């Protein structure tokens, strides 16, 4: 029982990341009709926003310490962050410690800007082209973005730890009456799950309760009629692209303490996120969220030793197997609408 609870918990944070990426993907597909293979790269760029802010905050000037020596025996050059000069060491350390959460404020404008530039600069030229062309161009874009990041940040993962306050884990088992230390869950993963829930809630509320959201939903249902009413739906869709980029970016920012980011992390999530979108139903926002969590938890279960012992290798294929079964029985996905991707 405790093993099952643990794997459900495990599935939640992975599911959160899948759900956030898939939400943006399906939002772009629903509004613009574009299959965006560069969405994983946006997740990765979000993570690198956190890396960049950490680097900016630790930007230093050197002070030569004559009492110590470096690896070549020369006087040691000690790096002193500029933040210390401005705020003093204690506040400076606290700011550096909270770099990842602070990156949220840095990432939102950056990601919206990148999203808008991507849409206006490249993707809008492919609206009327077949999906295959869209996939090719966005996949190419993803590789270019990935290589740019690798050029500047290197290929190895860059540690981006959570604030000191969130290091360690929460004894969930003790809370629900199990033996202490049996079901523990890192604090940051709980934060990630809560953060994902808030973002998902905010996106839904935005689409459901604002006039802007109402117009976007109307545009998703019938773009032509909305246009005939004199509403500039294209402009709104561009903003939605920026928003979807920001959602992916924030998912990336908050993911950095879970796994040290590297240039390839977007691709690792991209394929699975597409499976999530397809299983959830193309263009369905609740479907994407549901499928994200479902597949995250399923993947966790499949990597249990007891399961692998019975069916070796199941951990690597389970998501695709389930996707095949769902698509065979429900070709529109779990919550897909009639007519989407069927023309």
């Amino acid at each position, binding site marked *: 029982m405790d093993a099952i609870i643990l794997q459900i918990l495990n599935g939640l944070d992975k599911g959160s990341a899948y759900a956030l990426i898939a939400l943006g993907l399906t939002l772009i597909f629903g509004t613009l009709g574009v299959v965006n293979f560069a969405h994983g790269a946006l997740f990765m760029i979000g993570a690198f926003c956190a890396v960049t802010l950490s680097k900016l905050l630790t930007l230093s000037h050197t002070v030569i310490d004559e009492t110590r020596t470096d690896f070549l025996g020369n006087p040691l050059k000690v790096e002193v962050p500029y933040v210390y000069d401005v705020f003093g060491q204690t506040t400076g350390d606290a700011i550096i410690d909270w770099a990842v959460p602070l990156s949220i404020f840095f990432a939102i404008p950056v990601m919206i800007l990148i999203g808008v530039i991507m849409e206006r600069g490249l993707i809008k030229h492919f609206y009327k082209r077949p999906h295959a062309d869209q996939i090719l161009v966005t996949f190419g874009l993803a590789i270019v973005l990935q290589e740019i990041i690798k050029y500047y940040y290197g290929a190895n993962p860059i540690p981006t730890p959570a604030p000191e306050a969130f290091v360690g884990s929460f004894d969930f088992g003790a809370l629900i009456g199990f033996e202490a230390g049996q079901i523990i869950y890192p604090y940051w993963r709980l934060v990630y799950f809560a953060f994902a829930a808030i973002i998902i809630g905010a996106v839904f509320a935005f689409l459901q309760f604002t006039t802007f959201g109402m117009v976007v939903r109307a545009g998703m249902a019938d773009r032509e009629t909305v246009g005939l009413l004199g509403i500039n739906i294209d402009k709104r869709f561009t903003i939605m692209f920026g928003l979807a980029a920001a959602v992916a970016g924030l998912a990336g920012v908050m993911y950095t303490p879970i796994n040290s980011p590297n240039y390839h992390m977007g691709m690792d999530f991209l394929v699975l996120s597409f499976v999530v979108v397809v299983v959830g139903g193309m263009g369905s926002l609740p479907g994407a969220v549901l499928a994200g969590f479902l597949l995250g938890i399923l993947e966790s279960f499949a990597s249990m*030793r007891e399961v692998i012992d019975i069916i070796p290798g199941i951990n690597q294929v389970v998501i695709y197997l389930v996707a095949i079964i769902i698509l065979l029985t429900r070709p529109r996905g779990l919550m897909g609408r009639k007519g989407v991707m069927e023309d």
Partner: protein
Amino acid sequence: MSKGNLTRRGVLKTGAVAGAGLVLPTYLRAQESGFTNAPTGSTVTLGFNVPQSGPYADEGADQLRAYELAVEHLNGEGDGGMMNTFSSKALQGNGILGKKVEYVTGDTQTKSDAARASAKSMIEKDGAIMITGGSSSGVAVAVQALCQEAGVIFMAGLTHSNDTTGKDKRANGFRHFFNSYMSGAALAPVLAANYGTDRKAYHLTADYNWGYTTEEAVRTSTEAMGWETVGTVLTPLTQTDFSSYITPVLQSDADVLVLNHYGGNMVNSLTNAVQFGLRDRVVNGKNFEIVVPLYSRLMAKGAGANVKGIFGSTNWHWSLQDDGSKAFVQSFGTKYGFPPSQAAHTVYCQMMLYADAVERAGSFAPCAVAEALEGFEFDGLGNGPTLYRAEDHQCFKDVLVVRGKENPTSEFDLLEVVEVTPVDQVTYAPDHPQFAGGALGTCNNGA
């Protein structure tokens, strides 16, 4: 004109086709000198096949730096580095056999097929007489086999799997780097001394060749001193989040977790294990411990503070204080501004060893070079007295057991050497079961 007659155009066509046929597979053709790509002018070309893209690109970049430094030193430029401390004095700083050393580079992408293609291109198009490099055992084994067929020497880079000088060994291939067996043999006594002999270990193992041999080596060595292995799970190489593999460890009664992972896998699995509080656990009345059999400073950097206090093994570390290591660190550090990695060290050594063997053999012919390397004993290259064993072309030298440093003084100062395991303790018989199943065969000059 009837069909059977010769025409001018027909003769030209036939001639062109026949000519092309003769030109293309140059490395398969017998040459006047009797071996592939024999240097004829005043220069000799070596091929550096390293990952310049993909997940090990940083190791590859560091290896290229070391190769460039080695080329400088061989050609008599710079401060000479470890050439000055090398016990063999055959190298004069005038190139190799008086020929200036030039090089071409290829990108292995850490993929066997890409690595073979780039090595093949360097041999056939650029006339490389020796191929060296690689940051993965899969790549090393593949390129070693290609070099054997092509008749050039392969000086392996960073490859730790037993198979490279075990079941996949080749007469034209040589490895300076240590291997999984040596890691296990060196680590086990240190682990016993620090964690006791009554331990229950759980292994997470990368699902490929290197992972299997490392798990086997560490299991065998730790079980021999009394540890029990309570679980082994293979993890996909593409895995990024290891939480679902880490949590079953909590459910087992294991009190040690062995991470047979390298590169990004190691960074992520170790980070996840620490996040899940494994290091704060007490199981069976003992503190829970984590072990990483193969450490690399570049990887330790990726895992950040999570490596503190964790044991592992490494081929070489820049903080060593012997003359060879100091000379190399001085030379590399002055040129590039930071200390070299173990990946850089091993390829620099391989360059020196190859060049020296050619000088001693008086010939670039692969079989002559191989004969000069076989059974060669040397010192002064940073690892103490070393033997290039003739039976399997594996270097035998001391192995470093390292631990993540608690209070690093710089971004390079991440590991501390806790023990230098003497070579006798990591030496094994050529027919040891972990290395069985292959044969060196005979060396190939390619002609």
